[in-house]
């Protein structure tokens, strides 16, 4: 089959392609300039309804950062915890986000500085294969404004050509964020408490269950187990204390959730990671609707009580760690003295 090259010689063809190339260059320029302007304004946003937690963890420094989902966001009150442990605390929990998001944020933090400790509030669904696997990655798009950071880039692009093409656009990284930027710049701190925003005590709604409770036979995702292990190891590589936590639910855990929680306990015991489990401890007061806004999210009252309990346990863990470190340093010293 002979290739018809005659059209390549026509002026019409050349003119069209010259115009197409010029227009593409124009569009790329507009896109890149517009994207840079938006990036500048986005980096200035710290408050508002949709304030980006990435800006907080990349622009400020905290001793303890608590990662997780909407449960984290609603349960951990930094100002209360700070009083007990005498450290600065940030709540990096985010609505609708799972393990991948926490891991991505953790990488952003560790790349910049070394906090004293990081906490991950666990969800049973963190290590489960979701029906729509793509969904969790799609949710990570909220971190697209940080795409220039290599840690975020690898998670969002995942070596796929289509993702590479998509994120080539700098404007696209701020898709559906224009109003947030305007709103966040306009808004002041309000009742913002280092990442925690009190929801008050709204009327209890009998909704929301753990994702695993809606599945017949949840399967563990080895990819996510690896991410969880990386979450621990990358922090330890920088000598950051890692602590796992599981905050209370209104009703006793289902068989599925219990099974996964036991799996977590074994995993973290083998990795020697402290696990603060308020639920299985003796706290029947949490079996009370007055502490909850739905089955799995506490209201402000529940969060206050939980944060008090959590901060006591966290203080204990941090103290043990401090003693252990001091002990090791002393033994190092005595070894040195002996050898002298």
């Amino acid at each position, binding site marked *: 089959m002979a290739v018809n090259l005659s059209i390549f010689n026509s002026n019409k063809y050349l003119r*069209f392609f010259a115009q197409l190339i010029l227009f593409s260059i124009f569009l790329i320029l507009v*896109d890149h300039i517009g994207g840079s302007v938006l990036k500048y304004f986005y980096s200035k946003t710290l408050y508002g309804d*949709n304030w980006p937690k990435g800006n907080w963890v990349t622009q400020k420094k905290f001793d303890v950062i608590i990662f997780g989902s909407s449960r984290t966001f609603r349960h951990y009150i930094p100002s209360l915890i700070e009083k007990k442990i005498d450290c600065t605390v940030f709540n990096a929990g985010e609505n609708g986000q799972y393990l991948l998001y926490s891991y991505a944020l953790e990488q952003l933090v560790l790349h910049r500085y070394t906090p004293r400790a990081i906490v991950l509030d666990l969800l049973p669904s963190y290590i489960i294969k979701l029906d729509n696997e793509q969904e969790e990655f799609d949710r990570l798009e909220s971190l697209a404004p940080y795409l220039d950071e290599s840690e975020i880039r690898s998670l969002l692009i995942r070596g796929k050509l289509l993702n590479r093409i998509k994120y080539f656009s700098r*404007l696209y990284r701020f898709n*559906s964020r*224009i109003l947030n930027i305007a709103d966040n710049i306009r808004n002041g701190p309000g009742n913002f408490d280092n990442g925690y925003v009190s929801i008050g005590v709204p009327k209890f709604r009998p909704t929301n269950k753990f994702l695993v409770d809606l599945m017949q036979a949840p399967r563990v995702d080895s990819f996510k187990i690896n991410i969880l292990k990386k979450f621990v190891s990358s922090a330890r590589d920088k000598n950051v204390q890692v602590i796992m936590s599981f905050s209370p639910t209104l009703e006793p855990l289902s068989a599925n959730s219990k099974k996964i929680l036991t799996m977590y306990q074994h995993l973290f015991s083998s990795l020697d990671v402290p696990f603060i489990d308020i639920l299985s401890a003796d706290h029947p007061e949490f079996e009370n609707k007055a502490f909850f806004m739905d089955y799995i999210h506490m209201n402000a009252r529940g969060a206050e009580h939980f944060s008090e309990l959590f901060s006591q346990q966290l203080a204990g863990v941090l103290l043990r760690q401090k003693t252990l470190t001091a002990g090791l340093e002393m033994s190092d010293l005595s070894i040195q003295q002996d050898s002298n």
Partner: protein
Amino acid sequence: MLFNSLQFAIFFIVVVSIYFSIPHRYRWILLLIASYYFYMCWNAKYIILIAFSTLVDYFAGLQMNRISEKRKRTKYLVMSLVTNLGLLFTFKYFNFFSRSVSEFFQAISIPVQPPLLHVLLPVGISFYTFQTLSYTIDVYRGKIPHEKHLGIFALYVSFFPQLVAGPIERASNLLPQFYKKMTFDDERIASGLRLMLWGFFKKIVVADRLSLYVDSVYGNISFHSGLTLLVATYLFAFQIYCDFSGYSDIAIGAARVLGFDLMKNFDRPYFSLTIPEFWRRWHISLSTWFKDYLYIPLGGNRVPVARMYMNLAIVFVVSGMWHGANWTFIFWGALHGLYIVSSRLSLGFRDRLVERFRVNKKLVTFSRMFITFQLVCFAWIYFRAGSLAHANLVVSKIFSLHWGRLYIPAMDQFVYSLFAVALLLAGDILLERFNFGAAILKQPVYVRWAAYASLAIVILLIGVFNGSQFIYFQF
């Protein structure tokens, strides 16, 4: 493969590049392979259905051409009708029919276990079935010659830009174009790309944005107030318009880039002053199909008035059924049939009323447009709801006048939705009133580029890129 995906962008660039690089005589092969590949991206197995329909209708056309006597040709027409409508019935309507029969028997206390087929609905089956049927009917009527070239005929049935959601083309318009040598026409390509851009705006910025709100409301009708359901219904009117007309624009634009002229499918229908006008502007290729192949054979206007109204009602009920195997679609079609009949019956009275009270012309125009839009929106409730019971619940909540509070899950998302609708209306008003499409071409290049870039920026910044399906694919 969805039009609003990067896969399609790459596919289209590759096809267009090869298309203009190879001699004309090989182009149909490229387009046929591309079209089959395009369809197989959804479900490879179902390409067999298209190939089967193609072979049956090609054979029917061939046989009908051999026989000069119309009466003797009938058996081949019947063969084509039975095969195509049989496939459509099996895959689309069998389960609905089976369940309905079973429900009927249960209602009279005769328990029946309905036999159900566990098959997926082939994407676009209603579209390509109607397209290929129009060919056999036209050959039977002697309106067009039969197509001798099997490959070209297969391409007519499966031409990828309009394969899965129309416009439903006629053989007399599309078949001859496959023989025409398409030269590289820069203005034509630019015009096609412009139309595609506008189609992407409608789909990605308006339809998919509005679907976030509409789906969340219509997914939990009982939880929502009358006001919320009213707002969701209005937004659905714009969602479905942009979803379907956006698809049509992309399809027509893509075909235009390749050198083909597809028929216009939408003509800003919400500016219609009457329901009959709405149907001359909405899904034009389907309306004209029903007019040519159902309404006119039923007798059209050449029958007594009562029969004509009956014919109109039949056409709209069938049109409703074409849209989906659910009583909601049938009711939606019947409602439009009722609108059309009422509109015709009351036309004289309405005109006399306007004349007698000497109502301001602009006010009359606006009122007619407003009322037509309200009637269309009312019917959309039945189109969108999952069942008649749900639709009736929506209607009762809206008309209860205890409207309650408006549900706004996220203010920014809601504002984007309103902004998208405002942009669409502004665009449609500019196109309808000021022929903006032609006017922009007269502007200097920097103005044109700025306009195209602005539209692209809006798509990038407020578009919803979750690659959602087009609503009409299910039909």
